């Protein structure tokens, strides 16, 4: 098994996350798709750190995790606010600006 197989796994997970963002309507599930994409990138970072023998990749993955945690807080707060005003967590119902 080559180490680059990890990159293949990361690519597949990233694509599944992207497809989730494109296909699902529930805002929370869409958000989980974003998290999956971030995780896939982290796996690629860690693998590249190993390929190049440099822990900088791991540090960057660490930064991604921290930023993702901050992003989750803000994103979920926005979802809750939208749910309070529209009684729905579907991304298609947020169409106030639609004509």
């Amino acid at each position, binding site marked *: *098994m*080559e*180490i680059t197989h*990890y*990159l*293949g*796994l990361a*690519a*597949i*997970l*990233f*694509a*599944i*996350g*992207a*497809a*989730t963002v*494109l*296909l*699902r309507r*529930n805002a*929370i599930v869409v*958000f*989980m*798709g974003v*998290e*999956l994409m971030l*995780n896939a990138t*982290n*796996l690629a970072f*860690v693998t590249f*750190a*190993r*390929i*190049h*023998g*440099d*822990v*900088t990749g*791991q*540090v960057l*993955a*660490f*930064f991604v*995790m*921290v930023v*993702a*945690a*901050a992003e*989750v*807080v*803000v994103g*979920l*707060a926005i*979802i*809750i*606010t939208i*749910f309070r005003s529209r009684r729905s*967590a*579907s991304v298609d119902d947020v169409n106030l600006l639609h004509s």
Partner: protein
Amino acid sequence: MTASGAEAALFWVLAPLMVLAALGLLFARKAVHAAVCVMFVMVGLAILYVAQEAPFLGVVQVVVYTGAVMMLFLFVLMLVGVDSADSLTETIRGQRWLGVLLGLGLVVVLLGVIAQAAFPPAVGLAATEELTNPVALARVLLGDYVLAMEVVGVLLVTAALAGLVLTHRRRLSVRPTQRVLAAARVAALPQGSTLTPLPAPGVYAQNNAMDTPALGPDGEPLPHSVPRVLRIRGQERSATAVLAEEETLVARDDLRLLGVGPAADATVEQVGDPVATGTTDAGATDEGDEDGEVR
């Protein structure tokens, strides 16, 4: 560089499972199932990190992602409503096929790039591992990236503040104080409300005390001490009926205490029949009482 046999086995067991769980996120109808699937993927990633000479990140992955982020997701799911199922009607025409096409295209492009790219021979992290992994990480984090780390700290504080501000709800009316509430209760007295709490139902052994009214100081039963639901359903019982029933039980116990040996059981059986009829009589009078109260 090829990985060791054990690592290859771990990868080939874990990777298909993780892809399956990720597909669960894509296809699960219920959001909670999707969240559990994502948790599985994240734990799998943590194991892969540890296998890839990044034990610190593996621990952080478990703590931050499965411990904090996914718990937050589940918390918000419970808040928003678990049963808010996804609608499957298309609002944008052709969106589904376009999404599937783009997803598959992304897989093809990314895998193609990885297959085409020429990677340098993998070095492995053994060279940096004269330090332990967390120490090596800290050297880089607090050396080359110390400014970025400070900025990330500011970002975290900002995000915490944003979470507070975004979920803060402004009170539109004046909050009623205790004085206002008391004045409202006194003002409602002419309409027949009471100032004091309602009396509790009567307490008797051997039966459900909720359905029996309490007796007032004058010995009269207080019908409003029985919960309103039981009264409306007609499941209320009068205190006299309950007391009569208890007396029959006491009498039966007395007989059992007087008699010794198996012969006593026979007497109890014999006496049991009139006792039973007495109970039914009591029940009949009970019903009559209830009718009277309803009228």
